[in-house]
């Protein structure tokens, strides 16, 4: 018999072990897992390969002192959305790329690099995706200090 939602969550907890820094389930089908950025690639690999989740997309956000990346994975069989969250200080905007283990993350990591200025270490093709070639270096449209008039 197919796994139900609670069994799926249980399996996820077992696979995750003690890696997550925080675990939140505000609604039955939404899970938010915070991980240290050094564990991010391995955790993403686990979600994609071992747990069998589908990669939906990722969100990069400037949250003030830090930059936040939320990778959204989905487990379609039970409609579960797993959000893997990692943070890094603005002074050190480098996080590991998950593209080597999750190919679908290729474009969205390049987009986050362009728009929020997060550097994905180990990305196989870190060219610009969104910004024009003549856009100035170091100016990120979705950073808080970026004014709309430019």
């Amino acid at each position: 018999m197919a796994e139900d939602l609670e069994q799926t969550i249980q399996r996820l907890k077992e696979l995750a072990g003690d890696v997550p820094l925080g675990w939140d389930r505000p609604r039955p089908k939404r899970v938010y897992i915070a991980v240290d950025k050094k564990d991010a690639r391995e955790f993403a690999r686990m979600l994609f390969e071992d747990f069998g989740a589908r990669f939906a997309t990722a969100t990069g956000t400037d949250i003030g002192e830090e930059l936040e990346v939320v990778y959204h994975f989905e487990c379609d069989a039970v409609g579960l959305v797993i959000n893997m969250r990692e943070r890094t200080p603005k002074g050190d905007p480098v996080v590991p790329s998950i593209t080597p283990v999750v190919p679908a993350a290729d474009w969205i990591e390049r987009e986050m690099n362009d728009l929020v200025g997060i550097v994905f270490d180990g990305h196989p093709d870190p060219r610009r995706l969104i910004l024009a070639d003549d856009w100035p270096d170091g100016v990120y449209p979705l950073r808080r200090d970026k004014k709309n008039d430019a």
Partner: protein
Amino acid sequence: MTHKTLIPIGPYHPLQEEAEFFQLYCEGETVVDMDARISYNHRGIEGVSMNRTWDQVPYVVERVCGICSASHPLAYVQAVEEIAEVEVPERALYVRTIINELERIHSHLLWFGLAGHFIGYNTVFMWAWRYREPCLDALEVVTGSRINYANHTVGGSRKDLTPEMVKFVGERLDEIEGPLDMFITTALEDPILSLRLKDVGVLTEQDARALGACGPTARASNVPIDVRRDDPYAAYDRVDWDVMTCQNGDVFDKVVVRLLETKEAIRILRQALRDLPEGPVQASVKEVPPGEGVGHVEAPRGETFHFVKSNGGAGPERHKIRAPSFNNVPTFRASCIGQPIADVTITLASIDPCYSCTERMAVVADRDTGEELMNFADLVKLSRQKTEEIRKQL
């Protein structure tokens, strides 16, 4: 010595005439590599949305895409409703279902017509677009507009359906259903379509999963995912319908999946119109507390994903929009390499790409000497010639 030809496609898509640009590297007739760089049409809608209030955003995001203009607002309002824990009235859920399924019919028929046009089947184009019109008429009567319906709001639906509207939509479906059956029979049985589209632009199940493909692109490659069933929203768990999948992942299967889905959409619509419950269509929403919400909707092209973050203010603190084409366009590398040039155009069209959603497309190339350029008109000619040759051989 191999002679390499460089073919730039764009910055307008050969089929859908939106800003994008591919470069194909060819040896003889065969594509050996390709590259895509995007963003000719980036409008910064995420940034715009973050400077608007909760109620204004649906009208902004429906302009992400003219064809998916019911899917983006629905994904957004569902994300906000998740944060604010809003109970949406039953009738509004049905109204949402009706509008989104009408959108699916018109989108799939639009694509079917264009695909026919592109391989030199202009009769398909004329017929498909002829029967897309009743669907647009139905949308106009229900929402007041052929596209950009301005209907979904946080907490419900802006407009209600009158009994006359329900009757009108039902009559338009009667008008579409017969010809749709004919399209399906034609597509499945026509020998030229089979020869022209089978085994062309194959996306394997493995590639579809690895690249995160969604919607009909994934379902044609035997990846049975559909947000409407997997994480039900609106009234999809209250009506009886099936997820359509095919096995081969070629262009032919992508045609079949879309046509069968259009048929299912009519099935969903008939039940929704019949079972439309009485009651209000709008719940009162006082404020949106701090929090995060995910809204995803099965748009005609695949899953539209919205992530909204609230800090308790008047509008979203962060609003991420991921249109289905953003995941589907990178599958081109998997489905085009190794194909003859004449098949590339229909393969590029087969995912029903939407560039104003994805916002981008361009290409970088190593401009070695000895490269030859072909233009878009040459490519269309090649595609049509191939169909013509198949026709003659029959």
